[in-house]
């Protein structure tokens, strides 16, 4: 046992930790997105009541995808632009990046159609993709996930389904955090050459699976202890403010232009 009480002289051989680092990074990235669940941010668009935003977004997306009217499409473009301006800088960047990526993809896919002379129509489609993807992402960055899931109630999605959705979100977060901790633990103990990283990772995944099963069972008993027997009522609380009224009028005006 005396080895434990003596100091070691140890120089590690070279070994790349890239694999673990990469997995750590990708998990961190997902987590940072889910963290938005709770965060509260300033800005007019962030203050619009979520159910209104959800319904408006769906409405405008449907209108944009079915419209062939130039005036409407241009005013929808203006609407998206105004929305973008009201976002925070980092959010604006993300929305733009995603919108541009999606529309470039569709542009590439439409190259054959453009080559056969269908240029205007193809460009309209690319433009529509840009608009709809941006609108969906504006909703996503300016609204907490739970606000969106609660708003689903207005679309007549059953409450119990919303509960399942929300618990799923929780688990993505919790399991992400657990795997992050396990990976970190693996990393700080990887002090030598470990040629067998993949098997460490699969052991870790097995652990995660058992853990999630256990957590699920315990959660269910915790719910039962608080009177859950299969019925659930998600309460949707929202109040209409002046910002909401303005937002609603703008969206209504926009949809009016559609007809």
């Amino acid at each position, binding site marked *: 046992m005396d080895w434990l009480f003596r100091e070691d002289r140890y120089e590690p051989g070279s070994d790349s930790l890239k694999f673990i680092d990469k997995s750590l990074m990708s998990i961190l990235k997902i987590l940072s997105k889910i*963290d938005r*669940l*709770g965060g*509260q941010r300033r800005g007019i668009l962030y203050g619009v009541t979520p159910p209104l935003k959800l319904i408006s977004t769906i409405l405008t997306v449907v209108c944009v995808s079915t419209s062939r009217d130039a005036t409407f499409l241009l005013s929808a473009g203006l609407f998206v632009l105004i929305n973008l301006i009201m976002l925070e800088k980092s959010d604006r960047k993300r929305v733009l990046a995603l919108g541009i990526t999606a529309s470039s993809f569709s542009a590439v896919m439409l190259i054959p159609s453009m080559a056969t002379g269908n240029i205007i129509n193809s460009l309209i489609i690319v433009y529509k993709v840009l608009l709809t993807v941006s609108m969906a992402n504006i909703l996503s960055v300016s609204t907490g996930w*739970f606000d969106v*899931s*609660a708003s689903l109630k207005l679309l007549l999605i059953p409450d119990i389904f919303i509960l399942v959705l*929300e*618990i799923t979100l*929780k688990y993505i*977060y*919790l399991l992400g955090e657990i795997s992050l901790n396990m990976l970190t633990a693996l990393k700080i103990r990887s002090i030598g050459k470990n040629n067998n990283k993949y098997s460490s990772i699969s052991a870790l995944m097995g652990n995660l699976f058992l853990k999630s099963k256990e*957590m699920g069972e*315990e*959660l269910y*008993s*915790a*719910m*039962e*202890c*608080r*009177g*859950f*027997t*299969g*019925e659930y*009522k998600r*309460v949707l609380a929202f109040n209409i403010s002046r910002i909401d009224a303005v937002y609603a009028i703008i969206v209504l005006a926009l949809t009016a232009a559609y007809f």
Partner: protein
Amino acid sequence: MIEIRNISFSYKDAPALKDINLYIAKGESIALIGPNGSGKSTLLKIINGILFPQRGEYFFDGTSITAKRLEDNAFSKKFHKRIGFVFQSSDSQLFNPTVYDEIAFAPRQMGLSEGEIERRVSDLLKLLQIEELRCRVPYHLSGGEKRKVAVASVLAHNPDVLVLDEPMNGLDPKTKRFLRDLLIKLNSHGKTIICSTHDFEYVDGVFKRAVVFSKEHTIIRDDEYGRIISDDEFLYENNIK
């Protein structure tokens, strides 16, 4: 009120409780003491109708609690309303999108009006001094905050019996003292408190009776809390102190 008769329980591969007998009257405050793995959590889960013993019987207010009995939704709700359980790990207990919804979960299950629920939640946020957490996501909170939310969410259905599994674990001294005072207050208002612990700091004054579990999963002593706690030789011998 709670009567445990000759209960034995084993998990697939390991025994957890052997021939346990226990009677707990209304208004008692009782500590379950014992080393890790002695079966405290298992007994608490049986008391809450989460696990069911392979042998022996459990009566709550004279009614035998079995898996079959709890399949009856009306009975299950009534039973769980009267007994509240704060889990050892708060993570498994918190599943709502906000702290407000978390605390409101049980009252909503009970069908209270939103006005009454609002009042209960606000009172509890104040009682536990977590008013600023109202709109936060429960599982982003720190360990101590989570524990407080878990306690609030259990108190929300106003149970007669409050069961806590090592509630002091991982709390800072101030929060421990706060929780101790809360337990004393609840007990003085007639709530029955059942609490597992292996930590005697910060719990003085909470318990009147203690039940000691051995590592062989049996009860080896059932006595006044003060008498057990001052019996250093006994505690040391049984890996409690």
